[in-house]
């Protein structure tokens, strides 16, 4: 290797040092996962059991019962015949094309992921809204979570927990949780100052302000965040299938490797159908439950 000037090439660190760093970090993480892997797995055990239970519930129940339940829920949430009929037809088509079981697996995965993202995300969003310091720490972390390629954080998760449902769940949550956190924070910060002041003036404690004023008024924004979270979770299904999450993602993965165009398209359309169902239903419900929130200032 000829001697090159540092002006031409970026002065690099010694190759040996770099390998050293990698080895040390990898080794440390490997021994960490050997040491604590079982403990952490045990920690996630209840979650796994719930996930399995829910999946089995959807799979073991007769298809017509599940279909009926979905139709009923869509109707209750949206009160729109058009939407309800559309969703039911889509589900019938999914079943007819032989994707029922995989759709049920994905549905259960998405539901559990969304519930977990809400349970974790809303409190984090609340803390962010309450303190500028928390906000300035959490925001860059969320930025990293959203921009870091999903494959990168799949590696440590798989190293720690192996392949299966729980690592898939964690990966999906990491990918999908930022919108609900961000929009909870934003929604609370945007609550009308005078309404909040009124609550304080009548002696409301900070808990009373949070649950009586801030959260209800931030709800439309939070709902938009939840909606985004669901969409992102669905988008993550295919990637999660790479680490053994069963569902609609696996046939898609198989289609990529084997160039099965039709199989890929059908499963892709099933994912789209699920997405439309979640999106329209949650939005219709949000709109219906908050119709009186609009336009308070008009005279």
């Amino acid at each position, binding site marked *: 290797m000829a001697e090159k000037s540092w002006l031409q090439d970026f002065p690099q660190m010694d190759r040996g040092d770099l390998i050293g760093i990698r080895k040390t970090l990898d080794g440390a993480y490997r021994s960490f996962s050997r040491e604590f892997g079982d403990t952490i797995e045990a920690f996630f055990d209840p979650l796994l059991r719930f996930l399995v239970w829910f999946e089995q519930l959807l799979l073991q129940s007769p298809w017509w019962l599940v279909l009926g339940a979905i139709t009923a829920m869509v109707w209750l949430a949206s009160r729109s015949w058009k939407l309800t009929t559309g969703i039911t037809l889509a589900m019938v088509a999914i079943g007819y094309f032989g994707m029922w079981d995989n759709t049920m697996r994905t549905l259960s995965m998405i539901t559990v992921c969304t519930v977990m993202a809400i349970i974790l995300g809303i409190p984090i969003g609340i803390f962010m809204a309450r303190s500028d310091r928390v906000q300035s720490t959490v925001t860059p972390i969320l930025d990293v979570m959203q921009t870091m390629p999903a494959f990168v954080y799949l590696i440590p998760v798989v190293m720690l927990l192996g392949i299966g449902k729980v690592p898939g769940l964690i990966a999906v949550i990491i990918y999908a949780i930022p919108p609900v956190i961000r929009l909870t924070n934003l929604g609370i910060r945007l609550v009308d100052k005078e309404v909040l002041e009124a609550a304080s003036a*009548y002696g409301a404690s900070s808990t009373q302000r949070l649950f*009586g004023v801030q959260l209800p008024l931030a709800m439309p924004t939070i709902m938009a965040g939840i909606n985004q979270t669901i969409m992102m979770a669905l988008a993550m299904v295919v990637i999660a299938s790479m680490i053994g999450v069963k569902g609609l993602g696996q046939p898609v993965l198989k289609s990529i490797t084997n160039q099965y165009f039709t199989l890929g398209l059908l499963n892709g359309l099933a994912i789209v159908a699920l997405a439309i169902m979640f999106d329209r239903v949650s939005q219709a419900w949000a709109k219906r439950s908050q119709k009186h929130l609009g336009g308070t200032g008009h005279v």
Partner: protein
Amino acid sequence: MSDSQELIKIQNLYKVFGRKPNAFMDKVRAGISKDELLTQHDHTLGLKDINLTINKGEIFVIMGLSGSGKSTLIRHFNRLIDPTEGQILVDGEDVMSLGKKALEQFRRHKMSMVFQRFGLMPHRTVIDNVAYGLSVQGVPRKERREKAATWLETVGLKGYEEQYPSQLSGGQQQRVGLARALCTDAEILLMDEAFSALDPLIRSEMQDQLIELQAGLHKTIVFITHDLDEALRLGDRIAILKDGELVQVGKPEDILLHPATDYVEAFVKDVNRARALTVETVMQPPLNRITAETICGALEQMKKLPESYGYYVNEDGYQGVVLQETLEQAYEEDADARMCIKVVEPLAAVSCDAVLETVIPDTLETDYHLPVVDEDGGLHGELSRSAVVEVLGTPHRAA
């Protein structure tokens, strides 16, 4: 005002907004101007050396233009804003010494507040908005809704219970705000530009309603406004605030007739005095009073009077006007006869509470000074046309 009871007392209150307000307190006390503090030190002078006492049961109006610090001041009463320095006493209790829990209790029971942009909760129905103060206190749902319903009826919104605020007009929304404030039975009512966002007709309707309510409730009301007409109409006493400093505190007629500074004078220049002043503030003491029981005695009294007529007053109060001419005729007929209706000509008296505007036609119709009577019908004063003209003319500063 020594006979009335002090309820709120504010002493040496200062408020500086900025990153390090305490660092500049010495400069503020030394009298640095608001502009200097802002341009040189990037701090805003909110309030400077405010001293106030507000008595039980009065409507105390704090008036100033936007940026004068009036909204900042009212937020000190319940500590929505903490002062940089100074003391706030309410009913003898030092509000500054209250801890978090005690302050919440204080706000729940002692004061309630009405806001300029109503501050209603859009996700609660009207009745739940009115009951909000009670729900914060932990009053059971049924009880607080019953109470809220009665207050809604009082402000004239019966039937709107289950509507949402966005379905109401501005005036109706502010009625809800008022009902919410009254529903907690707090002794003190803070009203921050409560009627400023309403159109003029609704505003004067709301003012009437407030006056009417106050007549029955006797709350202590601190009312903020930038509208002098509103201040004069509502206020028992008025404080004028300019650039965070109190310029003048006094009764409406003091402010109007004896403005303390050029600033106040400029302020009151455009006021419709005929509408703002009552007869009582303009009238002279009743000189032309005839009280004698006989014609002879009456004529004796009449001769001492500056005018050639007098107002006859007996134990039932004011009766009418008596002319010297008529008396002299009656004297020739029977000097010792008792005074009777024959010699007294009827002349409608005006009430001392009447607004000046309403009595102007009366002063023009008669050649006599108008007799002014009090509530019991007794002669209280007299109102000359020239006095009215003088007051309604160009304002002049008291020497």
